[in-house]
């Protein structure tokens, strides 16, 4: 019996690569469970690396984004009264003022399921608050008459947008103060100011004033609470510190003045300080983790496939086929594990850091961390494979006999 040889032809090396890829695809089709398991293990390693990689970035964003997005120029704290507010608002240098009173209150979910103490900022204009305060990096508009909670606080109280909360006195044992109800109109994702609620002053004025009256009558601490405790001021043109105190007619030592630019600079310095130490350590650790994982994967692939590679070599597989076989497998594993790692990293930041980072930012940071690490790790791993010689494989073949 003799067979025709007319169908034989020599094709370029691309054909050899094609055979390598064909083998990998067949392998994936038939050994799906093992491949998925390997993929999951690698995905966990990659996700840990990505989390390490982007933690410093996430920290930087948390520290800075609130102040970067806020539109106030300075913040004045102290015993502030209506007359101070009027004086500032009447000045041509001032564009906008948000007057707020910060009170520590007890918050309850409407059904009384959860109770938390939190700082409540009563603001005289919710729309201005959404622009000026360093609480709203995503620039959501705060609805007048509603309450805005940080996502962390909402999660602790188990409330969502549309639910109601009750605000009550926590620090002073006032007899039967009326609990003030407020409908949650918006959640903000910011960790910059911790657990905060921003509430329209109109909503609670009567009740709180009533309570204030009781406090004054009892002579309790806090009875001399001022009308406002903080102003956020946006300017039309630059002014100096003395102008501010002249305008409100007060002494500098009675107030605390903080320029947003100064605060931002100080936050940036803090983040930069972290950059130079922890950041480098975490990022190096992350790259190291990736490299070790990928090298292990390559080594494991080459070792576990030694027999297959040897048999292929004996069947006449050229080096491009053998390389394509190993590299295509690694490519598929790395790409699918990276996709899983991206999802895992995203979920980690969403769930573990309690919504403090906006989703799109987490996705951007995760992709950034993963891509950088995978490029470095893959280059090293590919180099290791590239250095594998056919002679090493034929030695393995000798052992197969």
């Amino acid at each position, binding site marked *: *019996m003799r067979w025709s040889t007319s169908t034989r*032809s020599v094709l370029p090396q691309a054909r050899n690569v094609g055979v390598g890829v064909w083998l990998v695809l067949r392998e994936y089709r038939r050994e799906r469970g093992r491949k998925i398991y390997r993929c999951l293990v690698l995905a966990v390693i990659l996700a840990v690396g990505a989390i390490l990689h982007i933690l410093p970035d996430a920290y930087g964003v948390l520290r800075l984004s609130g102040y970067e997005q806020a539109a106030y120029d300075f913040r004045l704290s102290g015993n502030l009264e209506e007359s101070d507010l009027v004086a500032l608002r009447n000045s041509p240098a001032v564009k906008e003022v948000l007057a707020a009173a910060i009170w520590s209150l007890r918050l309850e979910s409407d059904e009384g399921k959860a109770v938390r103490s939190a700082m409540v900022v009563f603001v005289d204009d919710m729309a201005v608050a959404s622009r000026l305060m360093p609480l709203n990096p995503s620039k959501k508009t705060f609805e007048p008459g509603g309450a805005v909670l940080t996502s962390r606080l909402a999660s602790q109280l188990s409330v969502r947008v549309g639910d109601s909360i009750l605000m009550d006195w926590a620090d002073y044992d006032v007899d039967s103060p009326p609990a003030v109800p407020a409908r949650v109109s918006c959640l903000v994702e910011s960790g910059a100011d911790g657990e905060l609620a921003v509430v329209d002053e109109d909503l609670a004025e009567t009740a709180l004033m009533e309570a204030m009256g009781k406090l004054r009558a009892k002579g309790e601490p806090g009875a001399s609470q001022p009308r406002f405790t903080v102003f956020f001021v946006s300017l039309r043109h630059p002014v100096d510190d003395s102008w501010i105190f002249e305008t409100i007619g007060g002494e500098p030592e009675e107030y605390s003045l903080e320029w947003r630019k100064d605060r931002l600079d100080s936050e940036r310095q803090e983040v930069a300080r972290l950059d130079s130490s922890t950041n480098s350590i975490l990022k190096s650790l992350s790259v190291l983790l990736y490299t070790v994982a990928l090298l292990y994967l390559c080594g494991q692939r080459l070792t576990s496939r030694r027999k297959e590679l040897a048999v292929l*070599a004996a*069947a006449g597989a050229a080096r491009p086929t053998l390389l394509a076989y190993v590299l295509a497998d690694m490519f598929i594993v790395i790409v699918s594990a990276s996709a899983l790692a991206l999802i895992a990293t995203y979920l980690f930041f969403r769930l573990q850091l309690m919504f403090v980072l906006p989703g799109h930012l987490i996705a951007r940071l995760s992709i950034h961390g993963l891509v950088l690490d995978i490029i470095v790790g893959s280059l090293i791993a590919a180099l290791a494979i590239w250095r594998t010689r056919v002679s090493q494989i034929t030695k393995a073949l000798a052992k197969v006999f």
Partner: protein
Amino acid sequence: MGPIIETKDVSLVFRPAPRTCVVALSDISVQIARGAFTIIQGPSGSGKSSLLQVAVGLQPPTEGQVMLFGMDTARFGNRDRAALWSKRIGFVYQAFNLLPFLTAHENIELPMRLQSVRHKNGRRARVEQCLELVGMKTLGDRLPSQLSGGEQQRVAIARAIVNEPELLVADEPTGNLDDAAAGLVLDLLKRLQFELGMTVVVATHDARFRPAADHVIKLEQGRLVSEVRYR
């Protein structure tokens, strides 16, 4: 026409550790004629597999020269070796070494893919022929794990011969098989020699091969102790 394999004073020494030296082959000179059914016999550790490996270029000899198809194996590059193994030599192993994720059909087809046989129909027809030759026509779509040892070895033989090699090299092809399966494999190898004119070289300690052999090389402790040519 010269011998298909010729070894001249071939020695093979392994050094598994410093100051340790294992002599696998010592001054072996043999000639294997084209078209012959040659068996290399000897007890375990006598150097049968080593001689086979050296003869087909899997191992370079420590000393001596090996001529394969009239070419010195010491001068083979990777491409020469790949071309030779894909076109002119077929390997059959004791442990079958089928790729576990390929069906019998795909395992047999693999060397043709590696040799860039383009036409799918041509490949399929040839695989069918090979499967028929080894008596496995109905089992082509099974994975190796779904086949018995004897069936796997027959698929391995079909894979080895699919590219019509001139030389078929088998290392203990019946080592993992029961008597009935071993008999089938022996018959198959003999048929390949007769019907396709292949040169078959088998390293084995299975005495059933002896009556079928044209040429018997007997080794002991890496040395050639006897060589008998029947035809």
